[in-house]
């Protein structure tokens, strides 16, 4: 069972984000593995183990040939990576990105299951999993909080507004997993050392058989017309708890007539 996982390398969320002059996100710092994707990597490693082997292959698109985030996921236990990096990709929207990822999955070869997060932490469109599935002609089982493989099928518990549904499809398929459903392992020292020598297949847009006009600003077919500051919300009263602060809250609740 070969399982591919989408991993995004994003600007460190601990550093306040800013926009470049072209209104795209400033990605100049060294990107790190999106926390959201650590769950997908862990899920893929567990599923590969349970299915009796096979490779876990990382799929990533990042500027400047970034590999730091990939090395983190390789150190967790993934076997290899396909990394798409190309100046032509700047400004790509979700559909263009999905086209790139679908081609990269095909290039990875022999993939039975593609695992993704539900959305990235920086762009968070939340459309890529189903877009990639549509491009590949695969079923998509989205918002999974539990995943099982067996008999050429994948079965998930899909998060719903009021609980969950059990959803099944045959392989190959795409599964998006919600955060918090598995505990991502910490890379071991041995894992970190091994990751340095694991293969990263670095490719360009042309290597994937896509035209530059299908990606980047041209492919995105949208234009940012304005960027402005939102009205700020002002801070109100701030009290130190001296053991009695709960009474101030009770008062406030009474004023609002919620009690």
């Amino acid at each position, binding site marked *: 069972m070969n399982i591919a996982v989408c991993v995004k390398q994003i600007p460190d*969320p601990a550093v306040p984000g800013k926009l470049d002059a072209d209104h795209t996100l400033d990605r100049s710092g060294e990107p790190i593995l999106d926390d959201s994707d650590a769950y997908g990597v862990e899920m893929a490693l567990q599923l590969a183990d349970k299915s009796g082997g096979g490779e876990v292959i990382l799929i990533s698109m990042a500027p400047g040939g970034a590999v730091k985030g990939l090395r983190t996921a390789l150190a967790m236990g993934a076997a290899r990576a396909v990394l798409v990096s190309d100046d032509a990709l700047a400004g790509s929207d979700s559909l263009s990105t999905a086209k790139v990822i679908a081609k990269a999955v095909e290039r990875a070869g022999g993939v039975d299951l593609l695992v993704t997060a539900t959305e990235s*932490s920086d762009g968070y469109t939340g459309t890529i999993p189903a877009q990639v599935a549509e491009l590949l002609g695969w079923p998509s089982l989205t918002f999974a909080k539990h995943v099982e493989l067996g008999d050429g099928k994948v079965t998930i518990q899909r998060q719903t507004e009021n609980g969950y549904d*059990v959803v*099944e*499809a045959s392989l190959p398929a795409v599964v998006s997993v919600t955060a918090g459903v598995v505990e991502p392992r910490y890379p071991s020292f041995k894992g970190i050392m091994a990751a340095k020598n694991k293969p990263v297949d670095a490719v360009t847009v042309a290597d994937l058989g896509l035209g530059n006009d299908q990606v980047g600003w041209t492919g995105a077919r*949208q234009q940012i017309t304005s960027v402005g500051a939102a009205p700020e919300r002002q801070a109100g009263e701030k009290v130190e*708890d001296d053991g009695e602060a709960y009474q101030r*809250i*009770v008062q406030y609740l009474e004023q609002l007539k919620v009690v």
Partner: protein
Amino acid sequence: MAISKIWVFAEADGDTPATSTLELLSKARELADTLEAVYVGANADALAGTLGEYGATTVYAIDPGDALPGPIGAAALEALIGEHSPDALLVAQSYDGRDALARLSVKLDRPVLTNGVGLRVDGDKLIVGTAIFGGNTLVDTEFEGEAPFLAAIRPKSFPAEPGSGSAASVVAVPTPDAGRAGEAKVLERHVEEREGPKLEEAAVVVSGGRGIGSAEAYGPLVDELAKLLQGASGASRAIVDAGWVPYSKQVGQTGKVVKPKLYIALGISGATQHMVGMKGSDNIIAVNKDAEAPIFGIADLGVVGDVHKVVPALIEALKAK
């Protein structure tokens, strides 16, 4: 060519349209001459009255059987759009809405704009407003190229206001063959009993963050206070990521947007990720140990203190009343 015909991808909450659907119809009614809905589900007749009241004249109804609705919806929409040429399709940024819109964008080879919180028509342009960086920056983006324009709008972006339309006429559309995408079947449905209101619709929301210390503290602190105030309980991303509570409780950029009358943040520092989901609340109370926590910058009442002391005392006081 102006934007004259807008479609809304309708979703249901039992036998009534979802609130997010009514919000989209209310906004689209201002913008469009013709407003129609597309619904993937078995009970379209039950929804037609309310959909009509909110402005939809027609609802195209597709019964997905036991297939996941998103992929079936995308296949049906591709054919219906070819036939009826709407200028725009609006979906809620929901589980099924995202699935349908994403697949449709590939079928039509059109970009999608997602996480919209604003919507405006300027001549033949449709402009989608989004809020980024924790909601402190507003961005307008317009579609280039040909209609239909495909947009996903976050729930709670517009008020749901009924109009005076009569029931929408239901047009039953045969279930399309969605190919392998249609293979994803729902085998079982598990409905978890919920006490009190839904998170997005509650007048009071009480959320917990890392500062509550453990998964075990969520019930006695967060759920308990929410219950006393007849509200709903929510969570920051940190404790969803830690597996303390399910994703459906997450408030924030990658979770739900709430705009209650009162939001109470317990042990939440106020990462930008969280703030964007709750800063539209009418009133905000925050309790946090760290006096420098960013949440205090937007709280109407901030209590610098230990949630494990303040909240039990508060709960006792409310129970005594």
